[in-house]
């Protein structure tokens, strides 16, 4: 079983420290949830794990499958088995979902074997159709330009389609519930649940507890001031739902400021 291990992670953006010594281990096959108030560094963690160039790691380590993740570029991290479902997926005009996914699959194959000719068109069509059916998606999405003119719900489902097609070992879902109504939320959550199992570890980053009604976490962590301050089981999320974040702030205010 692979593990994503984060040790004492410090991250700055534009010289301002956002993550201040974060420790976390996400195992393949487990679902972890990180909850926390806005501005606490949840998205910074997501982007840093995926290698966004704007985020500067000033201290700490990230290890996955024996590799020092911090030494890898974003595309290398992806091919190693990490995946980020973006909070705000960008549009790529002129590039269809199908063309994009085929390129992503072929990049993986060529990294394994530089002489690889790429996935055959029939094989790819079958795979994509199968994944779209699993997520109950209309097949017409394959021919649309990636995220271009997509509604909020369509964008999030397209992220989950990518997750389903690329089969990573650890997936980070960054506020995947934001901007979704309850029906769209259920559809996206069903998609994630169809993919979870022993092969996939998930890190769900969310502000609200409601997503965790649909995606049941094994572990829940509370993040505050750039650190994880509390960890527990699913009960912790329910407790937050009832009590809000104030008790956490009160309990940890001194240590984080």
């Amino acid at each position, binding site marked *: 079983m692979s593990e994503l291990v984060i040790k004492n992670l410090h991250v700055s953006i534009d010289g301002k420290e956002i993550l201040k010594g974060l420790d976390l281990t996400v195992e393949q096959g487990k679902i972890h949830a990180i909850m926390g108030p806005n501005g606490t560094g949840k998205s910074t963690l997501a982007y840093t794990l995926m290698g966004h*160039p704007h985020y500067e790691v000033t201290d700490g380590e990230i290890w996955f499958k024996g590799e020092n993740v911090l030494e890898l570029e*974003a*595309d290398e991290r992806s*091919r190693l088995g990490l995946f980020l479902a973006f909070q705000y*997926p960008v549009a790529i005009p002129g590039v269809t979902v199908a063309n994009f996914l085929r*390129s992503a699959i072929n990049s993986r194959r060529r990294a394994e074997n530089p002489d690889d000719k790429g996935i055959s068109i029939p094989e790819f069509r079958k795979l994509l159709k199968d994944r779209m059916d699993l997520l109950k998606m209309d097949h017409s999405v394959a021919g649309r330009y990636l995220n271009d003119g997509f509604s909020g719900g369509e964008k999030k489902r397209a992220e989950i389609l990518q997750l389903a097609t690329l089969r990573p070992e650890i997936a980070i879902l960054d506020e995947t519930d934001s901007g979704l109504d309850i029906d769209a939320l259920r559809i996206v959550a069903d998609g994630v649940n169809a993919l979870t199992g022993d092969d996939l570890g998930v890190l769900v980053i969310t502000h609200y507890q409601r997503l965790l009604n649909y995606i049941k976490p094994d572990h829940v962590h509370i993040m505050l001031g750039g650190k994880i301050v509390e960890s527990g089981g699913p009960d912790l999320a329910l407790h937050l739902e009832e009590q809000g974040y104030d008790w956490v702030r009160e309990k940890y205010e001194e240590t984080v400021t």
Partner: protein
Amino acid sequence: MQEKPKITVTTSRTRRERVASDFTFTADLLPDGALKDFRQKAWDEFTRLPMPTTRDEPWRRTDLRTLPAGDFRLPKVDEYLDLPDIPGYLLRPLVSDQHGGQVVLYPGGSRVDLDPALVKQGVVFTDFRTAEHEHPELLAKMVGEVVRPQDGKFAALAASLSQNGVLLYVPRGVAVEQPLHSILWGPGAALAHIAHILVWIEDGASATYVHEAASPTEAGAHALHAGIVEVHVGDGASLRFVELQSWGEHVWNFSHERARVGRDASLDWIFGAIGSRLTKNFSDLDLVGEGATGRMSGFYFTDGTQHLDHDTQQNHLAPHTTSDLLFKGALTDKSRSVWQGMIYVAPGAQKTDGYQANRNLVLSKGARADSIPGLEILADDVRCTHGATVGKIEEEPMFYLRSRGIPPKDAERLIVEGFFDPIMQRIPFEGVRARFQEAITAKTASI
């Protein structure tokens, strides 16, 4: 330790002339034949007109001072036999499985094939010199009707000295199903390839025509192409016209082109430009008949130190006319592109609909794209819109693609392909799209 003062001496190796040197062609080069008078008049224009300078508005961004005009000579008869042969892929049909006819122009020679069934229908598709012998009256009636020698120095040069060219004539009401294909193959150094393309689609006729100009790059050398393309699309006629240029990067390429579209006629005009050292192309669409429609779609991709300047004009000269122009270009290295476009609506040309857009994607710091749209509207009941953009690849889409495992070069290529997709969507010919795709793959490989 004391540092020595650093002294840098910069000298210019090329002497900067205030104006470009002029050509050294002489009147005895004027060919005899049916167009003798036309050529002589054009020659008078050519000798009268000075070399353009950057003080002339259309030439403001394209500087000819380093053009070695005095070095060019016309090819000798059969000169192509001593030059690199045309590669086989250029001879293959581009827009269908086969073509109805093919004209290949070489330096000092040509080769013509035409389906006998088309000959029987009265279609003429041949090289210009043959046309001067075999169809003098037809030619005399049409030549210079659309592009006039006085349109510019290079138009006058091409009109007077054209060694070759193409005549395509489709008689009234004839629908040519199989596409027609011509290639101007211009290898060699110090040669002037001067060509006159004349396309005449009579009322109610239709055709698909592909004209391509190409040559291998001759490092350290110069060559010249000066061309005229004149197109007449008669009332109720339709033409799909594809022009591709992949000149070697030593070629100075100049052309004056104009299409005149008649009542309820339509023209679908596609340009692809990837070659040449420097290009100055004037392409005018004259919508002269009520209900005429013209679409212009341009693809260009420059690299190295290439300089491509496309000057387009959409002239709405009658009511209820429609024009739709989209030119898209990508640039790498230290290359430069200029697009300058104008929609003109004449007084009384009511209910016209004009659209023009130019989009550029600059892929390297040293490249530069200039995009200058323009409108001149002298009628009051019209709809005209335009847009011009110069952009670069943004960081967020790159990160998004890379986060899916796509390496940076492939991610860039994907974004460039996506950028060009709206042009590809306008091209109904798979072979042409494939050619553009090859250019994208080749030119993005060096980013």
